[in-house]
C-alpha cells in the first residue's frame, strides 16, 4: 500500500530550482532513504513534504488525499512527523517537556481547562509524562529526563528530537540526517533505534549521508541530484548504479 505519493514536485528559490519535477512513492511500513550530494535538494524535499515550504508546482498525497499546501501543524495531525538537520529544540524547557510537546495533539489543549487545571488535564498530563519517559528510554536518552534541554550533548539532542517526533504517534516519520555529527558508536545506536521504529510499523523516510547506515537499513533508496531524481531502487541496485557513483565522485565520470 502506498502511504506517500509525490507528483512532479518543484520548488524554486528566486528562479533557481531546488527541487525540479520530482515524483516518487513510499510504501507503508518501509524505510525509504533519500540520498544525494550536498545541495541535491534532499532537505528541501523533506520541507516540502512536511509543509514547511509550499511547493511551486506539483502535489503531495498522504493516504491518497492531497496534503500539499497544508501547514506543518495540520500535517502533524494527519500523521506526519519529522526531525531536523539543524536541531529545533525548545531550549528553555527540560528534555522531558520537549518530548511532551510531541503529545500536544493527544492532550486536552483547551484554554479554560488548562488555566483552571481540571483533573482531566492533570490526569492526561501524567499519562503523557509516563509515555514520554518511555519514549526517551526507547531512543536511549532516558537518563536526561529531568535535565534542561539546553544542557544535553549533541548526540542526545538528536535522539530527543526522534523521541519528540515519536510522541506524536506518526504514521510517517521523516528523519533529516539523524547520524550527522555523531561518532561511529552513536551512529550504530541510532541505526538500531530506526530499525526498532520501523519494526513497530511506522514508515520512515531517511535523509542521510552515512552510506553504511543507509545501505544497511533501507528498503528502498531515492537518489537525488540537482533537485531531480537520478535513480531509485533497492540498496544493492543503487550501490551498483554507475550514475550514482558518478554523482558522488563528481563530474569526472
Amino acid at each position, binding site marked *: 500500500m502506498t502511504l506517500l505519493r509525490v507528483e512532479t514536485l518543484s520548488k524554486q528559490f528566486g528562479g533557481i530550482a531546488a527541487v525540479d519535477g520530482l515524483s516518487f512513492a513510499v510504501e507503508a511500513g518501509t524505510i525509504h532513504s533519500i540520498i544525494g550530494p550536498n545541495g541535491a535538494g534532499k*532537505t528541501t524535499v523533506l*520541507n516540502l513534504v512536511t509543509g*514547511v515550504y509550499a511547493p511551486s508546482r506539483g502535489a503531495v498525497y498522504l493516504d491518497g488525499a492531497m496534503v500539499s499546501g497544508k501547514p506543518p501543524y495540520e500535517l502533524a495531525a494527519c500523521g506526519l512527523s519529522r526531525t*531536523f*538537520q*539543524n536541531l*529545533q529544540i525548545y531550549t528553555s524547557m527540560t528534555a522531558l517537556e520537549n518530548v511532551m510537546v510531541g503529545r500536544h495533539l493527544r492532550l486536552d489543549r483547551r484554554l479554560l481547562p488548562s488555566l483552571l487545571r481540571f483533573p482531566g488535564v492533570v490526569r492526561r498530563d501524567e499519562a503523557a509524562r509516563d509515555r514520554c519517559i518511555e519514549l526517551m528510554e526507547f531512543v536511549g536518552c532516558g537518563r536526561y529526563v529531568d535535565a534542561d534541554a539546553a544542557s544535553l550533548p549533541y548526540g542526545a539532542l538528536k535522539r530527543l528530537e526522534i523521541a519528540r517526533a515519536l510522541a506524536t504517534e506518526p504514521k510517517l516519520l521523516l528523519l533529516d540526517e539523524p547520524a550527522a555529527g555523531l561518532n561511529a558508536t552513536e551512529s550504530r545506536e541510532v541505526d538500531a533505534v530506526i530499525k526498532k521504529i520501523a519494526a513497530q510499523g511506522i514508515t520512515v523516510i531517511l535523509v542521510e549521508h552515512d552510506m553504511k547506515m543507509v545501505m544497511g537499513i533501507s528498503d528502498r533508496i531515492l537518489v537525488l541530484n540537482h533537485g531531480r531524481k537520478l535513480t531509485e531502487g533497492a540498496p544493492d541496485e543503487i550501490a551498483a548504479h554507475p550514475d550514482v557513483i558518478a554523482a558522488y565522485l563528481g563530474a569526472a565520470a
Partner: protein
Amino acid sequence: MTSTFLQFLFSGLTLGAIYALAGLGFSIIYNASHVINFAQGEFLMIGAMATVSLVGLGLPLELAIPLAVAIAAAVGVALARFAVVPAGDASVVTVIIITIGASILLRGVAQVVWDKEFHALPAFSGTVPISVLGATMLPQSLWVMGVSLAAILALGWFFGRTMAGKAMLAVSYSRLGAQLVGVPIRRVLLTSFALSAGLGAIGGIVVAPITFTSYEAGVMLGLKGFSAAVLGGLGNGLGAVLGGLVVGIAEAMSAGYLSSAYKDATAFVIILVVLFFLPNGLLGHKGSERV
C-alpha cells in the same frame, strides 16, 4: 486648492525630513549589532543642547556644531562601551531595556548639566519663508531635507566604498562570518554607535531651529525615528528616509484633511497597514527561516 495641498505637502516634507534624520541612526546601529537603540533620540537632544550651550558660551555656530557632534559621538561610544558591549549576547529585549535605561540616564544628566527650559537655535539661513505657488516653506526645512539627502549619500559612500563601512555591512549579514575573516566586531560596534550618535547630533542640530530643543526633546524624536526606521525596513538607510517621509506626510495630510487630533493615530494606522502587507517594512529584506 492647490496651494492648500502644497502647504500640507511642505508641512509633511518638513516633518518627514526631521523623522528621517532621527530614523537613520536606528538603521546604522541595527546594521552593526541588531540592537534597537532606544537612546537614539537622546543623541539628537545632546547635539542640539550642546550646540545651544556652546553658542551661549560665545562660540560661533561653525565651531559649536562640530564640537557638539563630537560630544554626542563620545557619548555614543561610551554607551556602547559600557552598556551594550558588556551585555554581550543577552536577549534582544534585555538590550532594549539597557538602551531604555540609557535614555533615562542621558535625560537625567542633561537636566542636571543644562536645564529644563526650551531652547531655540537661530535658523541657519534666516526665517524669510520661501513661497511656491502660494504655499510657503522655511529655509530651515530645506536645510533639514538637504542634510538628510547628504547623510544618505555619505552613508552610501561609507558602506559601499570604505573598508570600515564594508566591515560594518559584513557584520550585519553574518556576525560569525565577519569575525572569521578578521573583522573586529567590537570596533565595528563602537564605530557604529559613534557614527549613529554623531549623525543623530547633526540631525538634532538642524531640526532645533524648527522644533526647539529641551532635555526631553529626544523622546518624541526617538519614537518617530524608530517608527520611520521600522516602516522603511530596519537596517536600510534609504528605507528610514522613506519611512520618515511617509509618516511625516501622513501626519500633515491627516491634520489638513481629516482631523488634527488624530494625525498621529493616522500615521500609526498607515504603519500597521504597511506592516500587515510588508512584514519587513517598505524596503526591508525578506528574511527566510532556514531549517
